[in-house]
């Protein structure tokens, strides 16, 4: 990855700006703009702008500074294109980015990305994109109807909820008796 303006930055400062450049380039790549030269140029321009800002406030980290600057540029650019100055920033970025994606700006007009002023056709295309995520709710009440489980429920309730050792023992003795009688009867029969 190329470093920038080696003659003016040195040591740790140089590494920090290299990192800032790499980060900017990686971030711009996520927009999948088809004009790679434009992306590189944009990254260099953004770094230059960030260096100007850095001179005014040297305490800020170059990566943080350039990315903050880039996000601001992107927000302003989208707001201008979508007439969305009053929207919450996260809403605006989400709507704007979706509009960028659906209008295929990354492929059809990559050099208009962050360009000021943007071409009128682009503004039109961005405004026309509409994401329908779901139809309006039409709420129904769906609740289970009463179902009488019949004799098994009575039987289950009697065995589950009132189970005690004495009753269990009586039941076991009773059924052992029934099986014995049944065994004897079948033996006689067959």
């Amino acid at each position, binding site marked *: 990855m190329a470093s920038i303006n080696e003659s003016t930055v040195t040591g740790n400062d140089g590494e920090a700006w290299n990192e800032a450049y790499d980060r900017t380039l990686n971030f711009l790549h996520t927009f999948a703009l088809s004009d790679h030269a434009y992306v590189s140029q944009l990254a260099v321009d953004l770094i230059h702008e960030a260096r100007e800002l850095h001179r005014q406030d040297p305490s800020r980290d170059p990566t943080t500074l350039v990315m903050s600057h880039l996000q601001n540029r992107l927000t302003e650019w989208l707001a201008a294109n979508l007439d969305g100055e009053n929207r919450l920033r996260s809403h605006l*970025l989400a*709507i704007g980015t979706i509009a960028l994606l659906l209008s295929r700006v990354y492929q059809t007009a990559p050099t208009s990305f962050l360009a000021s002023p943007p071409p009128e056709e682009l503004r039109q295309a961005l405004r026309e994109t509409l994401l329908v995520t779901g139809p309006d709710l039409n709420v129904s009440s769906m609740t289970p*109807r009463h179902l009488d489980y*019949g004799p098994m429920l009575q039987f289950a309730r009697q065995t*589950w909820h009132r189970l005690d050792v004495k009753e269990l023992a009586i039941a076991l003795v009773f059924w052992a008796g029934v099986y014995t009688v049944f065994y004897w009867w079948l033996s006689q029969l067959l």
Partner: protein
Amino acid sequence: MNATTPHTDDFVVRRSVFLGLSILLTATGFVLMLNSYSGQTLFWEDYVCIGVFPLLFSQIAVGFILALFGFFDRLRGGDPHHLMRRPWREKEDSIPLAATAIVVPVYNEEVDRVSKGIANMWRSLEKTGQLEHFDFYICSDSTDADHWVEEECAWLSLCQTLNAFGNIFYRKRRHRINGKSGNVADFCRRWGKRYRYMIVLDADSIMTGPTLVRLVRAMEANPEAGIIQTQPYSVLGQSLFRRVLQFSGKVYGGLFSQGCSMAQMSSGSYWGHNAIIRVAPFIEYCDLPLLPVPDPGKRHVLSHDTVEAALMRRAGYGVWIAYAEPGSYEEGPPNLSDMLTRDRRWCAGNLQHFWFLFAREIEMGSRLQIWIGLMAYLCSPLWLIFLITGSFGAYFRMRFLMLSADPEDLGAATSTGAGLLLALTLALLFIPRLLGILTTLPRARQFGGTFRLLISAFLENLLSFFLAPVLMMFHTLFVLLTISGWQIKWNTQNRADKGLTFTHCLALYGWLSCLGLIVYPIAAFYLGNISLWLLPIVAGWILAPLLAWVTSGRRLGMLFRSWGLFVTPEEVEPPPELQGLDGDTDGEEPATPSPLWVQALLSPYVQAVHLSMVRQGPANGAAIPSRSLVTLRERLILEGPQALNPKEKLRLLWNGETVFWLHQELWSRPGTKLHPGWIQLQADCGKSRLLSHYLMEK
């Protein structure tokens, strides 16, 4: 009751013939069974056998009668009273369609396969010219963050590619209440009023446009119909196991469905997918009641379809099987292990249906369905008990005869009753299969030709023969686990023919081999020649690991296909709706190792799609994250995405503000304040599969 389902006199005759013949055959078997004991001394083991036998034999008898009904119906050219053959078919094209939702519940499924299936159905509907009446709803219950984010991108891709914004919708449930039935109910509560019908699919279901349209018209023409279930045929199999399953389903499955439809008419089955449902009565009458068990965690009905069909019948609407409608497909389990995973789930569900067997106001036909479903799994432990007690009984009898050395007793042991019973059992088991083959013979060309069809059928029978004892043991285990109260986890069905490792097969089925190797020598020692009866069962156990391993492989399945064996019509002439769905991964790049969900935090496009789907905070941005959420966010940034467990990932993704905040932070923090893994993820973000495969125009 809002609708009435007309029952003809014919219906009464059919049902009485069905029940009468089933009872007659069972009684015949029982008499032969008793006859085989005549003149012999009985032991307690014999009484157990005698007690269990009618239950087991009745299942064979019912299967035989259903196949016989199906065969008869095919011979006469179909049921003239069936809903799909009524006069409306003559003016079918003039029947206007009503608004219909196609509901696709998904749960950690293979996203690409699901979206391709939806795209194929969409295009098929488009060709019918009736697309305007249909909307698709992808209702996700996925618990895996990667799946969730991929589903969102796939949804956008579908809308973009098909120009389907406003017709294909994606909904992710936050709380996965009541599994699939809860997911469908959630759709009904939110959007059910917008539609007169819904067609419920499984994630792997495919239905052709003409079939979808015909189902809506059938409902429009028959207002008393509540559910019409199509017969989905298993397709796209590549492993030997799946190809054998789809072959048997095609040769025998239709016959049983046709028989079932003839016997049951408007009290037919609903299998939970590939069926059209009248939404209003479904909302009003078919919400599942809670089971009356003490543990609140176990009150939910696991297997919803049979109960919903019973409730629909209870409300007076008909449930029909459209057995003859083509264009309804699904994918089966690719190997024995996956089939057992599915069976474990079904077993737990079917056993719960016991509660509805004796519930009041449930129709007789529904009770029959519930009973058949119950016995499908209860038969296994009963069969095992029969085998064990039968073997012990035989041993004691042999000892008794040897000790008594009475010639009359020895003569009694060779009773002809046993031989007749064996002949009858084999006839009831194999005649349905023969009938299936007979009805397939006129279409043998679609199955690779007569010779190959017969060879395939023979091999399929052989495989079933060896697998049956394996299934018996596992089903017995499932029944015991269910009764003992072990929770059944609802796993995603694996549909990829990836094959099983031999180690896995040994670990899962090795105990059966050991059991077989121990049991048979003991049986041979004590029972002598009688132990030969156990040989087929023991052979199945011993071969289980090998069978599971060999049949799971794709290579062998495709080899058999190249030989023209287990061929189905959908393989000979694949319908356009199935094209591109075969999951052939040859030549494709391997799946990206980086987690997909982090793209919702890094990629602006993926993040934007995600944020448009989850609720974001108030417009003034004043939402304050909880302390635990703040800690979680910092942990993600400093320890990397692998530091979070699945629930934590979902928690972050559900919070729109957090997703946005993390996006800003991950890109703007210097490398020293990030986990090193993030730097590589940032560098790879522009090459993410989500972008190249779904979001970027190809």
